[in-house]
């Protein structure tokens, strides 16, 4: 997956939250409750689809704000962070 503003591209699995993947890659990731209730971690998707780890729902449109703490990559994903 790619973090467009930080310019980092990493290989990630499809089970780890994007928040963790970004933090491990050294990207400055906003966060809050880390459990999907506070909307403190929202980031815009540029491309790709994510999967909600709580419900398995897959979603994602360009410009959509997703919660990185409870989302993982369903396809290749570009996040504007």
């Amino acid at each position, binding site marked *: 997956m790619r973090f467009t503003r930080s310019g980092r591209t990493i290989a990630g699995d499809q089970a780890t*939250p994007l928040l963790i993947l970004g933090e491990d890659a050294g990207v400055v990731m906003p966060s*809050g409750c880390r*459990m999907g209730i*506070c909307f*403190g971690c929202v980031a815009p998707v540029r491309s790709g689809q994510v999967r909600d*780890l*709580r*419900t398995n729902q897959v979603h994602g449109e360009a410009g959509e704000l997703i919660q990185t*703490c*409870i989302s993982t990559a369903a396809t290749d994903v570009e996040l504007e962070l």
Partner: protein
Amino acid sequence: MTEQGTVLMTYATARLSDADIEALGSELDRIRADVVASRGERDASYIHTVIKVQRGLEVGGRTLLLGSLLPPLWLAGTAMLSAAKILENMEIGHNVLHGQWDWMRDPEIHSTTWEWDLVTPAAAWKHTHNDLHHTWTNVVGRDRDIGYTIIRMSEDQAWRPWHLAQPAYNLLLAAVFEWGIALFDLELDDVVHGRKSKRELFDQVRAVLGKAIRQAAKDYVLFPLLSGPSAVPTLVANLTANVVRNVWAHTIIFCGHFPDGVEQFTVAEVDGETRGGWYLRQLLGSANIDGSRLLHVLSGNLSHQIEHHLFPDLPSNRYAEIAPQVRALCGRFALPYTTGPLYHQAASAWKRVFRMAFPSHPRPSHPRPSHPRREAAAVAPYAMA
């Protein structure tokens, strides 16, 4: 007490096995999924209507106040402006900032863009409220909303002699509540304990001052001046409207977690908490208010504090609809559902303010087997299998 193969979780008011807690969690997840799947035009129409009504009340109220030298105009204008501020802060602001309407992808009605008619900036409040309060709800020592660092609201909070005065200063706090929240959101205790740098505090103070100046300029300079000869009565009216909103908000908020029947928790008790356990704590740690639909709207649907704490990001108009299902679950799992009329809940909360003003002994801790520590960065306990 541990049975072979099962761990019993004993809070004061509930005895549920781990399996029961997970079953409760699944049922609540299902209620949530039903609401998420059915969000649509009807809900969007609701919030658009509330916003229209609020704007009408504000414009109407401020227009009437242009002639506030005349007592009937002063009274009607102040009443309308008070209602407008209450609606904006509670049913609209609080809920929009919770992300309840983010699903509409409306750039104006969105948690990332809404700024509300209150001294505390939205960003500061979202951190202390959406994040800290909703994560650590009613955990003594972690949830700063338990008394807002100045009022003793738990036997487990150390008694200090100044707490004897807390009924008096809580009354004062009610009148100036928006300023109290702004100060509270600065989290000064974090700076004192070295958890936040002075640099970060400085930036936050600057943001609050900027917001406070804009708020004061609007209510205490601009609109009074626009009223010409009615300048002073308009200033008094705007001040009154802010105080009315402050007292109302303070009252509703105090009914949320302080009436009798609400459970408090220790940090040790929530160690290793699962998603189902978080749901259970939200339910046991919150109290509702019985009332009319008008009460529900004017309270920002915090009259459904239980439903709000279970599902902070679901649209507020849905809380009344799912309340019967939540209540039925409480019946099924033998859990309390704390609720009562407004005067009763408010009196109960105030009784606690008085009771805790005097020294008392810590409550007996609930013996509970230890759970493996939840990793700080792991979301896994909260993810569905």
